[in-house]
């Protein structure tokens, strides 16, 4: 055990914490300084975690097959870019995107359908709940059987995983318009479609975007985990599962880092669109005083 590294880690952590706390309380006059500060805070948080991780794994001599230090992971990452890129293409650009669009679309349409017909509302909504937790462990092998080893079966798993959050949130969102908003449409004798498009969907967007955000990470997890159950020999899940078995844990973490990056970017994109679409909602407009 290397005590000085451990002590350094703890000191660094405390210092960074204090600095961050100070920085996020402080209001800068200059807007660009403010913006810079808002970037520095999460970055410093991240750096702190990395420093802690590096020092503690080295300080306590944690075996590399359990948890490699970040430097080893970074080294592995830059040396494996072509492989990682191929994996991202296979898993994200094929399976995740296709499954995400289909699953969210399907959940959304089912919610609309349920909303349209009281009969289906009573008949389909309870059954929608059945799909809610079709465990990936059970479904993934079946999808491989039905749709083959390639990305299509992973997309199918993603569809199943993303369907329910979208269904639930859309149903809740469609109920979110206020009575007076509905009364107004009623006085215009607006058709169901008109009410939907002009009133109920806008009011539902905040909920729908919640689902889109939750699903953006769920889809990635789903596709990666589904690859544990049979794939061609490319893909992020394939890489992770085989490299764990081979004890190349640094490669596993490199792949995880890539997954986190891709997933965060995806989430960020959805959140960005959300701010555009629901600009009027108090949560975006800044209900805070």
């Amino acid at each position, binding site marked *: 055990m290397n005590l000085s590294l451990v002590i350094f880690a703890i000191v660094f952590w405390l210092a960074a914490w204090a600095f961050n706390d100070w920085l996020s309380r402080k209001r800068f006059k200059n807007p660009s300084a403010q913006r810079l500060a808002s970037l520095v805070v999460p970055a410093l948080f991240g750096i702190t975690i990395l420093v802690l991780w590096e020092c503690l794994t080295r300080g306590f001599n944690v075996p590399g097959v359990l948890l490699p230090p970040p430097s080893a992971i970074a080294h592995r990452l830059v040396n494996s870019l072509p492989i990682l890129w191929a994996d991202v293409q296979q898993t994200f650009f094929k399976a995740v995107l296709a499954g995400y669009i289909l699953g969210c679309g399907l959940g959304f349409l089912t919610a609309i359908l349920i909303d349209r017909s009281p009969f289906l509302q009573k008949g389909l909504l309870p059954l929608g709940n059945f799909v809610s937790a079709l465990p990936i462990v059970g479904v993934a092998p079946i999808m491989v059987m039905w749709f083959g080893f390639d990305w299509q079966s992973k997309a199918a798993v993603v569809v199943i995983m993303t369907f329910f959050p979208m269904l639930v949130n859309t149903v809740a969102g469609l109920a979110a318009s206020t009575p007076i908003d509905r*009364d*107004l449409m009623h*006085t*215009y004798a*607006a058709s169901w479609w008109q009410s939907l498009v002009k009133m109920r969907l*806008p009011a539902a967007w905040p909920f729908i975007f919640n689902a889109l955000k939750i699903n953006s990470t769920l889809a990635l997890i789903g596709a990666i985990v589904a690859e544990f159950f049979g794939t061609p020999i490319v893909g992020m899940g394939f890489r992770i599962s085989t490299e764990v078995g081979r004890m190349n844990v640094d490669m596993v973490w490199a792949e995880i880092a890539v997954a986190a990056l891709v997933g965060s970017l995806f989430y960020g994109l959805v959140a960005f669109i959300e701010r555009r679409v*629901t600009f009027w909602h108090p949560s975006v407009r800044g209900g805070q005083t």
Partner: protein
Amino acid sequence: MSKTNDNVVSARDLGLVFSTNDGPVTALTGVNLEVKKGDFVSFIGPSGCGKTTFLRVIADLEKPTSGTITVNGMTPEQARQKRAYGYVFQAAALYPWRTIEKNIALPLEIMGYSAAEQKARIEQTLDLVNLAGFGKKFPWQLSGGMQQRASIARALAFDADLLLMDEPFGALDEIVRDHLNEQLLQLWDRTNKTICFVTHSIPEAVYLSTKIVVMSPRPGRVTDVIESTLPRERPLDIRETPEFLAIAHRVREGLRAGHSYDE
């Protein structure tokens, strides 16, 4: 009694009871009322006497629990489906995701007006309520009175023969109010609309109406119906004539009688 097809609104023994968590609330009871084509009817009465509820029944937003009501000789539902009326709610009820312009366009879009027609009407009604230049703002960027005016503009933008207006000018100052009163009278005169108008201002009620309905609460009922003897042509200074003051006095008395506390 007049021929039915003359009646725009005709209520017989109308009653409405809300059932709430702590017992039923009688909002309307035994309401009999006839509104004729071209009438300008004001409803006046203490807070909570059922004015809004009655307007909502006409608009098919609330179902009466007893009695009958027809609108244009049909059930309120049929009338609503024929888009018989425009409604100005007591609260502005603007959609926050639409600009003022777009809020006014809403009924026009729904009723299938052409884009050019929409544009023209938006401009015209924004002018009417003195909001020209605010079309591109969002509702939360307007003052309370401006929001109310926007919602009036929205109801006036399309051609409904019957206007249901629930305290449309409540949040406006005297000058704007006078201005809009005049505008409304002109519009009414020009287009021969029928107007049901809730107000708390006695002068406003007398100035505008051909018929004033005085209501009283607990349970909500009609206590007096005053047919105005004022001419259809009404300059603002008609408000100083003895005839005007006499009607106003009768309304005030009716109002006072309906109140639970006497001063």
